[in-house]
């Protein structure tokens, strides 16, 4: 029987990052994935490390710390992960959004973020193809992006080089607590033993929680995204619409019966390092159906061609959907479960999994090693859900 210091459940970017930081500390680690690497949200997402969208408080603090790690991660992993800092703009096209966005920007500036509101002339200068009628925009210089696929590849390569065992296509049927360690049984009858378990199974983490009778309030939030053909740059900064922030902060300002509201659409528009534009995203509650829908494709198209009419002439080459693991209060869950010593959780990142992967792995490894965490994360403990 194989025995480990730590078994990470979930082969997405969070699980790979947790495994990486544990391996770096000399732990004997394996990673268990029921499908293949990046089969869940991490392989069906956009590429943003967006500071502007994070609510002031721990979400923003985590993103700032994570961004710092990302800056050197290509060097640490010995592989280019496609990190760029292009800055970001949140376009404001509705008068009733302006006041809310101004106070939002103020609260973020208090955290030291370099963000301002720019007028429509400046908007046009930065993004000449944007439609007439934009009132204003936020402008932040630090919003960045990374190629999530390359990050996963680089983590996986480093992890395998450091001796990680990888179990693909393995379904866990039972998790049993033996005296001071854990036994994980697979549905093919085989099993492994470990001192600690890290549940990083994203939208499926509540299923893993059930195996040890821990209720993890994380549900899938479906995000559909369109991909365009490769294009020259339309403007340096990546783009969001204020609907995206307003729907997070003050949903009552979004028209009640609209399709946009039902699909939870707030426009996110970014260019990948390879030149494709990603047009996102829906935020749909409900099911695990990975198909994209005509309604969502149509609505996203309408949104983007409204803001950038020039895009009517270009091709969409693909659409895809992923399930963002959304916790009940929208904040990640990173902790050891009190009544289950040795069972750790790193999930609930919602749409911020790519952005927060490095800091999550780092904090989790500190928890596993019983060290003081490098930032205070008591409010990320699952105990907050009572």
């Amino acid at each position, binding site marked *: 029987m194989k025995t480990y210091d730590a078994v990470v459940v979930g082969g997405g970017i969070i699980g790979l990052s947790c495994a990486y930081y544990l391996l770096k500390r000399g732990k004997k680690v394996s990673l268990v994935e029921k499908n293949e690497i990046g089969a869940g949200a991490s392989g069906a997402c956009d590429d943003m490390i967006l500071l502007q969208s994070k609510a002031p408080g721990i979400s923003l603090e985590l993103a700032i710390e994570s961004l710092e790690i990302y800056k050197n991660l290509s060097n640490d992993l010995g592989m280019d992960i496609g990190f760029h800092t292009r800055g970001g703009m949140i376009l404001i096209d509705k008068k009733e959004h302006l006041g809310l966005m101004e106070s939002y920007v103020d609260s973020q500036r208090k955290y030291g973020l370099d963000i301002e509101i720019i007028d429509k002339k400046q908007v046009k200068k930065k993004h000449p193809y944007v439609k007439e009628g934009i009132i204003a925009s936020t402008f932040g210089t630090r919003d960045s992006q990374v190629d999530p*696929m390359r990050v996963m590849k680089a983590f996986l390569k480093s992890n395998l080089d450091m001796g990680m065992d990888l179990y693909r296509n393995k379904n866990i049927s039972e998790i049993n607590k033996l005296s001071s360690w854990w036994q994980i049984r697979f549905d093919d009858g085989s099993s492994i033993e470990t001192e600690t378990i890290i549940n990083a199974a994203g939208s499926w983490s509540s299923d893993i929680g059930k195996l040890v009778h821990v209720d993890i309030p994380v549900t899938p939030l479906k995000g559909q995204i369109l991909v365009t053909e490769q294009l020259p740059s339309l403007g340096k900064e990546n783009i969001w619409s204020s609907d995206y922030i307003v729907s997070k902060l003050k949903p009552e300002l979004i028209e009640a019966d609209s399709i946009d509201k039902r699909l939870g659409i707030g426009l996110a528009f970014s260019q990948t390092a*390879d030149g494709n534009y990603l047009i996102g995203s829906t935020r749909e509650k409900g099911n695990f159906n990975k198909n994209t829908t005509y309604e969502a494709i149509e609505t996203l198209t309408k949104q983007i061609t409204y803001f950038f009419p020039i895009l009517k*002439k270009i091709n*969409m080459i693909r659409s*895809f959907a992923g399930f963002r693991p959304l916790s009940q209060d929208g904040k990640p869950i990173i902790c050891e479960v009190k009544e289950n010593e040795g069972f750790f959780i790193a999930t609930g990142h919602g749409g911020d999994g790519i952005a927060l992967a490095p800091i999550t792995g780092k904090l989790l490894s500190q928890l596993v090693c019983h060290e003081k965490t490098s930032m205070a994360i008591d409010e990320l403990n699952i105990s907050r859900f009572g």
Partner: protein
Amino acid sequence: MSKIICRCEEITEDEIIEAIASGASTVNEIKKFSRANMGLCQGRTCRKAIERILSKETGQKLENIKPSSYRKPVRPIKLGLMK
């Protein structure tokens, strides 16, 4: 110069082998790690070639290799045509 396998994304045989060396063991993982299959044609041209390289490099039998996924729209479509 290594052969181009994925013409849309100009991905060479060496790059696919490098993705496998980084840990990819399925066509979908190769797609994610190398971008082969990720272009305009969604692998219509290269998916068979990629399956063969994967089989050769890893010893998996060809008939056991799962094809990579197709996504809507199957052909590129102008955004202006979506009404």
